[in-house]
């Protein structure tokens, strides 16, 4: 039975499910959190310089070292950074940070207000030690801005523990020899992190709470949109399990599945622990079993031995059948052991529950069991790699097996695309926090913070005030052009025109493979303005936007002139209509006004959006009348 089928039967209350969310949302500010650089993403190809660095973990001001940072730094890695004409020395950690960006602080206070949170008296900028290279400084600057809020869900109130204002990390571009390449464009973009209290008690409530928080964030109209601009972390535990932080859930829709799978994983691990305890399972000492595989046909093992490496084994007494047990869809206890081995540079492990396979023969498995000295109820895990790597990796795998005797380990896991998770590192502790001495504390002043209208309220208002259909109203309110829509409507643009252009028209163009992302806010504003001023007929909007998207360096006015869109005066329109009418003289004479609808289409086609439909219709009627 797969873990997935099992999940349907879980009684989450009985299991004591406790879940919390951490939502990370980038803010759409003009400049970064601690410098005056723009918050725009770049193509790595556009990099103007590169430089390389190493990082070394440091102690907190209370004299402690963080476990996660220490584990990360065991791997001595070189980090290469890509810098751009849109980044500066602050991102390069070669200039002290400037003061905290005011715009970002204001937006954060707006978010605090939407969640009924209490801002702190004095916000201290902290350094959260992160030595994986994603921050040039070796830490992420993070500030606690507010605490003690709440949001509503249909299953009850969910408390909001804290609201942090942080800097976004650098984007990982590629793995390189001995290290990682990062791009500095993203580093320093303001980010709010919202942490809920562990008040969530079902997978569905987790999803609903995440959606609610997402809606509140977007209601400010000041958050970034699109892939990667929002990330969800989920903390899950069941009563007999342990707190597990799951990082980087990219899609909101996956949250309930992630929670379900994690509950299943923890429940299965608890069951495994019970079984192992019952049969007095144990983990033995690791040993070198290279001799067993001298003649092997297994490509992985032969490859490692060919390079002068070793095969290391660890006996897992009483584990037979357990290492291969599925604990999440397509993931076994052995996969967990393998994740730990990978952290130490190995490609993974093999274990006797899955052997013979991968070129390892039944005879070799027998010889392995004999060499290690285990009975049929025992299992063996092996790692083949450079001797040093294999040794560290098998030790890590053995330690993880040892933990299986106790149940669920507390840890940080990463979300996979299929709704499962993988081991990342130990849970970070308070020891990774150090005050940011380069930036003075700030005193948040919530008195002037505007209370934004919620998106749910906007949907209602667009229908009531602007007469938009509920579908279009929702599209606009939740869409990324919502702030633009509100601005142009305030400037007197017809709401229906604005809404249908920004949602329907752009969606159609996108479907036709027009690169609408190149259109700037100015472009869209100007196109709507041209229509409003009567300089461009409604019918010309699609063509003009297409022309602009193809060559976005032009203004809307220039593109309209070049494409000869709009601006057709009455005489031109009449001439075009006369052409059409004369071409169809026989039909007009015969059918009279009956010919109107057929000819109207032809006229509009001939004018290709240069004239307003009402005018064409009026003139066409006149011309038909003259001739019938």
């Amino acid at each position, binding site marked *: 039975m797969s873990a997935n089928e099992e999940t349907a039967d879980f009684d989450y209350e009985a299991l004591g499910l406790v879940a919390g969310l951490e939502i990370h949302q980038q803010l759409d500010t003009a400049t970064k959190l601690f410098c005056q650089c723009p918050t725009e993403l770049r193509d790595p190809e556009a990099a103007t310089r590169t*430089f*390389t*660095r*190493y*990082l*070394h*973990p*440091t*102690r*907190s*001001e*209370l*004299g*402690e070292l963080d476990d996660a*940072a220490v584990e990360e*730094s065991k791997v001595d890695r*070189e980090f290469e950074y890509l810098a751009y004409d849109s980044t500066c*020395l602050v991102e*390069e*950690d*070669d*200039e*002290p940070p400037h003061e905290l960006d005011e715009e970002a602080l204001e937006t954060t206070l707006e978010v605090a207000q939407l969640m009924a949170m*209490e801002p*702190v*008296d*004095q*916000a*201290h900028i*902290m*350094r*959260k*030690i992160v*030595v994986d290279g994603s921050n*040039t*400084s*070796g*830490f992420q600057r*993070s*500030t*606690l801005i507010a*605490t*003690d809020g709440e949001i509503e869900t249909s299953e009850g109130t969910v408390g909001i523990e*804290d609201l*942090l204002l942080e800097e976004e990390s650098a984007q990982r571009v590629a793995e390189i020899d001995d290290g990682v390449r990062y791009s500095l464009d993203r580093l320093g973009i303001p980010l709010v992190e919202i942490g809920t209290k562990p008040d969530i008690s079902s997978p569905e409530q987790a999803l609903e709470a995440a959606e609610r928080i997402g809606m509140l964030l977007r209601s400010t109209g000041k958050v970034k949109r699109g892939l990667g601009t929002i990330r969800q972390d989920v903390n899950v535990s069941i009563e007999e399990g342990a707190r597990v932080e799951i990082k980087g859930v990219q899609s909101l829709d996956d949250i309930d599945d992630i929670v379900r799978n994690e509950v299943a994983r923890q429940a299965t691990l608890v069951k495994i622990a019970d079984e192992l305890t019952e049969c007095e399972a144990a983990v033995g000492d690791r040993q070198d079993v290279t001799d067993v595989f001298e003649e092997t046909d297994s490509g992985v093992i032969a490859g490692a031995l060919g390079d002068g490496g070793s095969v290391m084994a660890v006996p897992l007494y009483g584990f037979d059948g357990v290492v291969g047990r599925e604990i999440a869809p397509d993931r076994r206890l052995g996969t967990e052991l393998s994740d730990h081995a990978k952290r130490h540079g190995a490609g993974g492990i093999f274990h006797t529950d899955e052997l013979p396979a991968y070129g390892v023969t039944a005879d070799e498995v027998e010889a392995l069991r004999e060499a290690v000295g285990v009975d049929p109820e025992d299992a063996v895990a092996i790692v083949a790699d450079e001797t040093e790597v294999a040794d560290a990796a098998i030790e890590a795998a053995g330690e993880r097996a040892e933990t299986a005797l106790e149940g669920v380990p507390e840890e940080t896991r990463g979300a996979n695309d299929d709704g499962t998770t993988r081991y990342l590192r130990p849970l970070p*502790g*308070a*020891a*990774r*926090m*150090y*005050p940011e*001495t380069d930036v*003075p*504390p700030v*005193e948040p002043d919530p008195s002037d913070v505007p209370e934004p209208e919620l998106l749910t309220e906007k949907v209602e208002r667009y229908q009531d005030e602007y007469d938009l259909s509920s579908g279009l109203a929702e599209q606009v309110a939740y869409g990324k052009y919502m702030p633009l829509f509100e601005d142009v409507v305030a400037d007197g643009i017809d709401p229906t025109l604005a809404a249908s252009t920004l949602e329907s028209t752009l969606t159609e163009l996108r479907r036709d493979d027009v690169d609408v992302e190149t259109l700037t806010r100015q472009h869209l504003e100007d196109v709507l303005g041209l229509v409003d001023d009567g300089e461009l007929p409604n019918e010309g909007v699609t063509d003009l936007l297409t022309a602009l998207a193809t060559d976005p360096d032009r203004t809307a006015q220039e593109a309209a002139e070049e494409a000869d869109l709009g601006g057709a005066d009455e005489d031109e329109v009449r001439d075009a209509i006369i052409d059409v009418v004369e071409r169809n003289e026989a039909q007009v004479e015969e059918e009279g006004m009956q010919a109107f609808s057929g000819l109207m289409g032809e006229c509009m086609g001939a004018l290709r959006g240069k004239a307003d439909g009402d005018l064409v219709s009026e003139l066409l009627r006149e011309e038909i009348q003259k001739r019938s």
Partner: protein
Amino acid sequence: MNPGDRVRVDRADRTLEGVLLPSSTDENLVVKLEGGYNVGIDRGEADVEVLAEDVYEIDGTGSNGDDETSEIAFDDDLPTITLISTGGTIASTVDYRTGAVTAQFDAEDVLRAVPDLAGRANYRGRVVANILSENMEPPIWQELAAVVHEEIEAGADGVVVMHGTDTMQYSAAALSFMLETPVPIVFTGSQRSADRPSSDNVMNAVAAVEAAKSDCAEVLVCMHGSESDDICALHRGTRVRKNHTSRRDAFETVGAEPLGAVDYENEAVSFRRDYQERGEADLALESDLEADVELLKFTPGMDPAFLDVVEGSAGLIVEGTGLGHVHTDLIPRIEELIDDGTTVVMTSQCLEGRVCDRVYDTGRDLLEAGVVEAGDTLPGTAKVKLMWALENSADVEEAMGTSLEGELQERSVPWE
């Protein structure tokens, strides 16, 4: 209620628990919450209850709970390097009073902070001062020179001086003039504080120790040679200048390529030009200084009364414009100072290139008045040199026009 206590703070509708930290103001309590975040709370509004006393020992040294010892077994095969701490960013931690970073480690702590130094040498640690380098003063140069002298006499095969970067170039110049040395004396520091994982202190310290083990028995400054962690440049102590406020590669040799470099990856030390070799000179110390020397930068609109301040001084370095000029109207006053016994030395605020007061009338008038030219000596170095020369040179004017420690290049060789 003391820093280090675990406390519960009630403030309006909210309760916060955490460890009380030393606060930087009277208005705010600073509490470290469970998650590690610090927050400030209005003292007036807060109700504080102490839950447990002295949960953390916060003595401001930042090294509590640390019983590790830095005593490392002596290895006969390794050279002995003395690490001298004067404070500064390379050995700094948080100062709770100001919230800023301050210097508080001794040399042993540096070893602890930079484990990468282990196994490269046998180390001796000395602390000469514990100051930020902007607070450096000539008497500390003298003390520093004396300690270096002592250490070399005691058998050190090289000396590394950990120094704040702001005035490192002055201290390096001072030791260049004060000491004849048979072993390398290498200054190093860091531009980014040691409390950050990205600090340049590890690489700079490692490279400085490698340079101190090398064959170049001069006073050197060893700092990052680029923005990357790849190369440290070795600068002659009398030609080096901090040319950027914050970059790792702020230090540059003016008017030439750096004397040498240390490759961080393969730890090779290399040199571009001739240098004084290990053992070539006999150890000697001449550390007397004339304290009454000033450096004056001339700018348009300068109040001539500025010159009154230095009346009666033993020496004055003028940082003139261009080839070495000041406003013509100032010349008679300068002549008076010289007649009164002040040695007036001309340098240029161009920094690159040598002064030449024979080209224009103003210059010729300055020479006429008795001003001494310092060639291409850097203004800061010239000040230190004049302080030293006034006490130790038979002919000060001749000394200021001659290279004693590589501070004055006889030939201007284009290098870029």
